[in-house]
């Protein structure tokens, strides 16, 4: 009877993990009912010992009636008995459910179809679990259907499952195993009696399974704890470390339509991930890094920047045609053509926007990828980019400062879309924008001033600790805290640019990454946001307000046209970027001025970027070995420290305060004060001797008195007379300390301890001596004792019983 209940509870516990997949709770009650029906029938089957094959059939039948009653009661006879119509209704609902599941992203609404599917799945799994555990008596096997249920949320949710749900699910399964074990074990120890034992003589003793149960629980709890703790200690095991698309925008919106990610939210998560895995690698035709953009956000609602509705036309498939022309790019501004070959890592999940340099003119890639006409974002609703390799050709504008200063009037459409600011934007921000750009005459000069404001003059600092990007957070960032990461910098600069009538938007993607043996390597920590500003003739141009370098976004670089004096002055100024200027591609890298590798020198201020070449394997192994050795040496160090501490204590001559001494000189009534220092010294010396014995593998009986120990050691190991005398002196000192009225004077015991130690060491092999130093058993034993105490505490917890009467095994 116990097993069907445990099976139902386990199924219910695991079904709880489905919660985040749904918007409401109707599915839960329906599934709970299904589990109850299955469990009740299972209990009846156990009670009346139905054949094993019949029980699941009975459960299926009951379950069918249940589904009919709940979902198609109107078409059933007397709301319960299935009819042809009700069956058709159920099938129709199932089909609708499948269609809905295809259509909706999680969390899904609980339509009747979806609820039916869920409830049906949970019910079938309940039947399977019941069959495995209660019929076949293979409870461990029941873990498989449970696992398949558990996999559903784990695979659909981008976020890691919250640990309480995992614990609940695991405990449910453990409960099933425990019930099975109890059922099994309770049959132990029942002899087949030939003669009837009168029941009044003595209650038949049940098999003593206490220890067995205890160790079982220990194993179970340890396994669950490890399963929870280990992944949190190993960051690489965290599910989906790269992209959290789909859900996780936390605002509950976007559920009922094709999910639109909130890239901003993902950014900080990726930047602060402990692991820094490679997202993609690429090569460029000029061997220079490029920012790769994923999304363009152009709508600022006063709180955050959001993405426009993307429109991909069927005839725009990029496998067939070049991308649409970049908006605003005219003939007056020179361009240079670069080609890239990008390979996206296999580990990336759900990347349905392509990382591309802006503006891409041609992308060669497999699959159904379409560009958004206005923003040139390339996305797919069917394919994802993981593991793909694609070629991109980009016609980069290479504007000079002059080009930008003399940029033409901005078209109306652009103005309307990219200059909109919410009405409730704080006045101070607008004032600040005006104040910062006061010195700039043209929009371009104002833009440069803005960038300077963020990077140099404004006193901003880079930190990932900042939270939020809503209105108050924006003004707080610009006006007060001035600390944030790329998201705040990009968003703030875009807002300030709009405030001074420069069309702007925020791009999300990756910085150029680092060069590893000829390939540019982009990692999760290179996730980035930057503002793009519009200049007629040049189109959308990237600006970089975020500080770069070790104290900022590591690989962020400022484009050349944002330094007017540099680009106008020539292309090989010391602070010039290698990609700077219209002729940047032919920068004399081998120039006579002995500059550092230009690739490493892209950053403003000239601080070289440390290129993470990846550690050679040998070094990794070496470091690992050193760490292991250091860990192994921990006991030795602890022992060494303890020995030194004790030596300090027992080296001090004991001062016996006021002791009248022994023997004839002392008369009665003389007050003696026990010397604590002397006692501490003796105790330390004795403890040291004790540990030395343990280290050298010499046994010591707990019933052996100090004197007996001294005698035995001296005889057994044939101590020299001096060593034997020292040993006897130590024994007498500890004896006096423990048992005598006055401990007496002992003097320094340092020499005695040393002598005895030597004498002991001389009797053991060299290997033993080395082990005593490197892996001292006394310290290990102490650690084990500590562990035992912890286990004892665990046992005490274990033995707390909450008022349950003892079960009789009658």
């Amino acid at each position: 009877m116990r097993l069907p209940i445990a099976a139902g509870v386990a199924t219910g516990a695991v079904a709880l993990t489905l919660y985040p997949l749904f918007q409401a709770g109707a599915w839960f009650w329906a599934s709970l009912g299904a589990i109850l029906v299955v469990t009740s029938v299972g209990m009846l089957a156990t009670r009346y010992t139905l054949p094993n094959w019949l029980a699941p059939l009975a459960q299926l039948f009951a379950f069918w009636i249940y589904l009919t009653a709940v979902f198609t009661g109107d078409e059933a006879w007397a709301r319960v008995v299935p009819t042809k119509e009700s069956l058709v209704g159920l099938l129709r609902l199932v089909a609708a459910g499948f269609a809905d599941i295809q259509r909706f992203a999680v969390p899904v609404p609980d339509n009747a179809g979806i609820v039916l599917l869920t409830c049906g799945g949970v019910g079938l799994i309940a039947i399977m679990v019941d069959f495995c555990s209660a019929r076949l008596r293979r409870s461990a096997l029941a873990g498989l259907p449970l696992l398949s249920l558990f996999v559903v949320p784990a695979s659909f949710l981008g976020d890691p499952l919250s640990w309480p749900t995992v614990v609940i699910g695991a405990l449910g399964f453990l409960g099933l195993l425990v019930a099975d074990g109890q059922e099994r074990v309770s049959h132990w120890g029942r002899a087949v009696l030939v003669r009837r034992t009168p029941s009044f003589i003595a209650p038949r003793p049940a098999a003593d399974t206490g220890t067995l149960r205890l160790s079982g629980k220990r194993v179970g709890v340890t396994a669950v704890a490890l399963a929870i703790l280990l992944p949190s200690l190993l960051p690489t095991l965290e599910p989906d470390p790269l992209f959290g698309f789909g859900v996780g925008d936390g605002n509950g919106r976007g559920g009922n339509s094709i999910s639109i990610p909130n890239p901003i939210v993902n950014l900080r998560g990726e930047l602060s991930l402990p692991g820094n895995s490679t997202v993609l690698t690429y090569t460029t035709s000029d061997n220079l890094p490029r920012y790769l953009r994923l999304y363009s956000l152009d709508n600022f609602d006063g709180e955050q920047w959001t993405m426009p509705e993307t429109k991909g036309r069927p005839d725009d498939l990029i496998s067939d045609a070049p991308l649409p022309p970049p908006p605003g790019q005219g003939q007056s501004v020179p361009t240079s053509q670069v080609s890239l070959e990008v390979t996206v890592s296999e580990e990336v999940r759900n990347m349905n926007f392509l990382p591309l340099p802006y503006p891409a003119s041609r992308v060669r890639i497999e699959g159904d990828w379409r560009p958004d006409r206005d923003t040139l974002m390339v996305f797919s609703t069917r394919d994802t980019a993981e593991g793909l390799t694609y070629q991109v050709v980009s016609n980069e504008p290479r504007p000079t400062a002059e080009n930008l200063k003399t940029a033409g009037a901005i078209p109306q459409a652009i103005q309307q879309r990219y200059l909109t600011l919410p009405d409730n934007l704080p006045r101070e921000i607008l004032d600040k924008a005006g104040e910062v750009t006061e010195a700039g005459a043209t929009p371009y000069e104002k833009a440069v001033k803005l960038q300077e404001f963020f990077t140099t003059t404004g006193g901003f600092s880079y930190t990932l600790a900042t939270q939020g990007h809503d209105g108050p957070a924006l003004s707080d960032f610009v006006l007060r805290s001035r600390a944030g990461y790329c998201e705040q910098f990009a968003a703030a600069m875009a807002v300030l640019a709009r405030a001074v009538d420069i069309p702007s938007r925020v791009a999300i993607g990756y910085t150029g990454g680092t060069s590893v043996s000829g390939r540019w390597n982009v990692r999760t920590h290179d996730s980035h946001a930057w503002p793009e500003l519009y200049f007629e003739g040049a189109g959308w141009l990237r600006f970089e307000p975020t500080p770069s370098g070790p104290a900022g976004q590591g690989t962020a670089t400022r484009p050349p046209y944002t330094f007017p004096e540099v680009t106008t002055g020539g292309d090989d100024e010391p602070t010039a970027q290698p990609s700077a200027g219209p002729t940047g591609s032919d920068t004399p890298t081998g120039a006579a001025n002995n500059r550092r590798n230009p690739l490493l020198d892209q950053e403003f201020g000239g601080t070289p970027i440390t290129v993470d070449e990846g550690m050679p394997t040998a070094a990794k192994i070496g470091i690992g070995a050193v760490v292991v050795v250091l860990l192994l040496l921990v006991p030795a160090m602890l022992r060494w420290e303890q020995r030194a501490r004790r030596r300090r204590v027992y080296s001090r001559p004991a001062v016996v305060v006021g002791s009248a001494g022994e023997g004839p000189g002392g008369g009665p009534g003389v007050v003696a004060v026990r010397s604590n220092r002397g006692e501490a010294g003796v105790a330390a010396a004795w403890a040291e001797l004790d540990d030395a014995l343990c280290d050298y593998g010499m046994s010591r009986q707990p019933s052996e008195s100090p004197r007996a120990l001294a005698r035995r050691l001296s005889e057994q190991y044939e101590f020299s007379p001096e060593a034997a005398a020292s040993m006897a002196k130590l024994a007498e000192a500890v004896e006096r300390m423990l048992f005598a009225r006055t401990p007496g004077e002992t003097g320094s015991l340092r020499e005695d301890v040393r002598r005895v130690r030597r004498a002991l060491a001389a009797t053991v092999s060299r290997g033993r001596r080395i082990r005593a130093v490197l892996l001292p058993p006394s310290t290990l034993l102490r650690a084990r004792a500590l562990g035992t105490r912890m286990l004892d505490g665990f046992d005490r917890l274990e033995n707390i019983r909450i008022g349950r009467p003892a079960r009789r095994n009658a």
Partner: protein
Amino acid sequence: MAVTHDVPPRLDDLVATAHRIREAIESVIEGKSDVVRLTLTVLLAEGHLLIEDVPGVGKTMLAKALARSIDCPVRRVQFTPDLLPSDITGVSAYNQQTREFEFKPGPVFANIVVGDEINRASPKTQSALLECMEEHQVTVDGVTYQLDAPFMVIATQNPIEMEGTYPLPEAQRDRFTARIAMGYPEPAAELEMLDVHGSASPIDKLEPVATTAEVKALIEAVRAIYVSQSIKRYAIDLVTATRHSPDLRLGASPRSTLQLVRAARAHAALAGRDYVIPDDLQALSLPVLAHRLLPSVEAQGQRRLPEQVITDLVRRVPVPEAQAR
């Protein structure tokens, strides 16, 4: 914490006197220094000794030698089945001259009483002696007579002889502080015995080496020997272990704890120490405890004697440890 420093009077004297007595006894009993030492220990612990062994190994000789080496009154009682309690304690006799009842003190009025073959006397007589041992006094016809200190009974009994004997019941064995077996002498010691005892008994030549007053002082000194709390706890642990041992039907009594600690004091004093150590208790646990215990049926079946059980327990019970880290 200040404690009164109570140096026992003349510990060195004690050791010296005890040494003299030991030498004197050992001049008569060859090769039995352990037995002699234990005898002295019991004397100094104000206890009584039960010597159990086969005839002819020198039980009576030991008792007599001890008595002779101390200059004190010694009485010897040969226990026989017809011995009456009044033969031990004494009797009130009517003095026709004074026309009054006069108390004639029995052999128990001595410092050392040797009860030979105590198991041959009737239980009534045995218990009369045991009462004197416990109370150190004799009551006859409603008048109580105190016995002199020191008062020590050395009883011998022969375990082999079964016919016509009344083995001491457990309750009465419990009154004896220690039980020892003499054991056969080593061949060398036996040879020496032949040489020495061949002509004349050396006990005749034995001169007293200590006075009663000296022995009293020794006993006083032993009472002052320091017993730390941890040692007391250790003694209790040892005794408690006998009560919980599955091999024993009857464990040691609280009286035995008292006597064990008392004997340990004497043992320490004889070693010239003014404090008791676990080794004293360990050395004494066998003679002090073994005769009080009854083995369980299972232990009897396995032929495990109480002596073995005690040896095991002593090996198991942990001694007080220094608390240091």
